[in-house]
């Protein structure tokens, strides 16, 4: 029985591999392949709030610039700096000069040691940064989340990126590095952890952080809240959290619609806040490698094949019903396990395991016919009739 199960599994894995190549390369399947690429079972974890924490991150404060002019932003930044925060992240790119007075004040403030600016890299690896008058490029970190093409849901981010041989630091990386004591930074081995793309451990949307509009912040009589904190200045909608405002808004796993059409759900600055929060609290997710996913897939397929070959001999009439029921239970339990592991900080991509295992279970019938055919040609030792 084991021999049959092993042959059946190997054959099904090979067929699956060939079919997946066809599936990914035929343009006819492109929309389906794209939709599947944007889907992950893990999104259910956030979308259904399976493990919502009641805590908020009090070390990061967000300030929404709405559509205020440069002078208003400059005055707000001045007030922020007066409140003595540890680091200020400026998630706005001032591409060209606009007015001498406001620009001069901004340039003076943006050059302060505890201010981190932002720049972005386009598809041709060109850097789009602030006008050089404001601050040199070394003061800024890139605000791209990841450099993976064709993936519109922000699940991972690159902390470090190598552009034309140069090591570039991301906005979140730079801010966290300035915020954390050097000893803690080194003890947590942050740089090594961020050499490869990391899954973002989301805390929540902007409501999980203290946030103000510029007007709200300016009217605060006591701004001591900002002392020794990280302050991120960026765009959070007009008015704040406006669901119909999609400027600098992105798809994240927190979107309540996990597949199909929806509107972006999280502002860029809130995503940066989540990234920074994960780095400073050292709550990185551990991703199970592709090698282990292949091993699990093979084992699951083999076990399922052994079980169904055995079951097909025992049950004659109800076999198909029981098989479907068992596969359903298997899928539900595996998704539960995946989500439970995710809660514990382990990322296991279960979609290929489920897909291949279910495929292998269905492949037994084909294997049976194949054996019958082989037996007409030559002798073949088998458990199956």
């Amino acid at each position, binding site marked *: 029985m084991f021999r049959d199960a092993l042959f059946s599994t190997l054959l099904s894995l090979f067929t699956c591999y060939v079919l997946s190549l066809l599936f990914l390369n035929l343009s006819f399947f492109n929309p389906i392949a794209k939709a599947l690429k944007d889907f992950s079972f893990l999104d*259910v974890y956030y979308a*259904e*709030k*399976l*493990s*919502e*924490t*009641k*805590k*908020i*991150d*009090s*070390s990061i404060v967000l300030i929404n610039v709405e559509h205020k002019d440069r002078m208003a932003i400059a005055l707000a930044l001045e007030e922020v700096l007066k409140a003595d925060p540890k680091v200020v992240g400026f998630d706005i790119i001032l591409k060209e000069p606009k007015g001498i007075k406001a620009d001069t004040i901004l340039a003076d403030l943006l050059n302060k040691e505890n201010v981190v600016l932002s720049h972005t890299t386009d598809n041709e690896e060109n850097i789009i940064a602030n006008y050089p008058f404001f601050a040199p490029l070394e003061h800024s970190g890139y605000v791209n989340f990841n450099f993976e093409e064709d993936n519109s849901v922000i699940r991972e981010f690159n902390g470090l990126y190598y552009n034309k041989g140069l090591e570039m630091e991301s906005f979140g990386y730079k801010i966290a590095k300035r915020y954390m004591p050097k000893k803690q930074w080194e003890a947590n081995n942050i740089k090594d952890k961020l050499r490869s793309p990391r899954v973002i451990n989301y805390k929540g949307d902007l409501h999980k952080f*203290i946030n*103000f509009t510029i*007007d*709200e*912040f300016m*009217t*605060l*009589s*006591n*701004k*001591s*809240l900002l002392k020794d904190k990280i302050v991120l200045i960026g765009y959070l909608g007009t008015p704040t959290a406006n669901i119909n405002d999609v400027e600098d808004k992105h798809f994240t796993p927190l979107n309540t619609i996990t597949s199909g059409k929806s509107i972006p759900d999280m502002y860029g600055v809130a995503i940066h806040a989540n990234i920074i929060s994960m780095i400073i609290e050292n709550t990185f997710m551990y991703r199970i490698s592709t090698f282990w996913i292949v091993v699990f897939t093979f084992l699951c397929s083999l076990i399922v094949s052994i079980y169904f070959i055995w079951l097909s001999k025992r049950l004659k009439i109800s076999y198909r019903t029981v098989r479907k029921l068992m596969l359903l239970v298997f899928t*539900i339990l595996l998704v*539960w396990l995946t*989500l*439970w592991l995710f*809660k514990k900080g382990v990322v296991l991509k279960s979609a290929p395991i489920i897909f291949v295992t279910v495929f292998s279970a269905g492949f037994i019938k084909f294997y049976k016919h194949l054996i019958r055919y082989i037996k007409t040609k030559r002798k073949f030792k088998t458990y199956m009739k």
Partner: protein
Amino acid sequence: MERIFLSRLIITIFLFISSNIIFGQHNYYVFKKEGNPYFKENKKVERGEPFLKTDILIVKKKDTVILVNELGEIFKISEPMSYSFSEIKLYKHKLEEDSFTRKYFKYVWKQFTNQNKRKLESGVVYREKRDIKLKYPIDSAKVYSPEVQFSWNNKTESKEVYFFLKDLEANRTIKLRLNGNSIMLYLDNYLLNSNTEYQWWVDTTPFPDLTQIEFHNLNILDKKEYQKLEEETAVLIKTFKILGFTEEEIKEAICVDYKFCR
């Protein structure tokens, strides 16, 4: 002698530092607020303001204050009463009791039984009136009280508003620049007088077009007029009481229907 002094000094410094570390966790800041809660001495509760050790937080009906401490823990206060700094820790927001597994199987069940939320789409654009709506005192209210709280809803972009109160007998208007959605005035025989009729309105500009403004009339009663109205409504109050209405409900109904607000 010097040694003893030095050791005591070290102990004092140590205790001071450690107590700062321990108690430093209990700084509270206002994370969110609903309604018009305030600190004693009429200091308004604003998002981001610290809750100092000397502060007393006053929460009225329909008010909610959510505080956060340095650890990111949330404290929700909504019961109408006064709160001192030391009492806040009793109101820590508890975690939801629903377990992870239960939530997951609830989700699976919802998927199987197709209990997804209905999504009704309508092709329309909303244009609500983005203006200031006067709330209290309601139009043509007759009020008998040592103080009057004026409140309004500001749906405009402007945070700063101008409150106007016109004394109809003296033909004198006072104008106050404000940041919030309410103001309390006392019967001080200067801003407010008893037995006087007023008009009040709120605008985003200091010099509004007086032909376009929407105002509320207000009559501040003296004791004699108040007693007269009390007698007139006594039967009505008694009937309401027999029907089982509470004092508050009766007060509200008489204020809305008979414009007599106590």
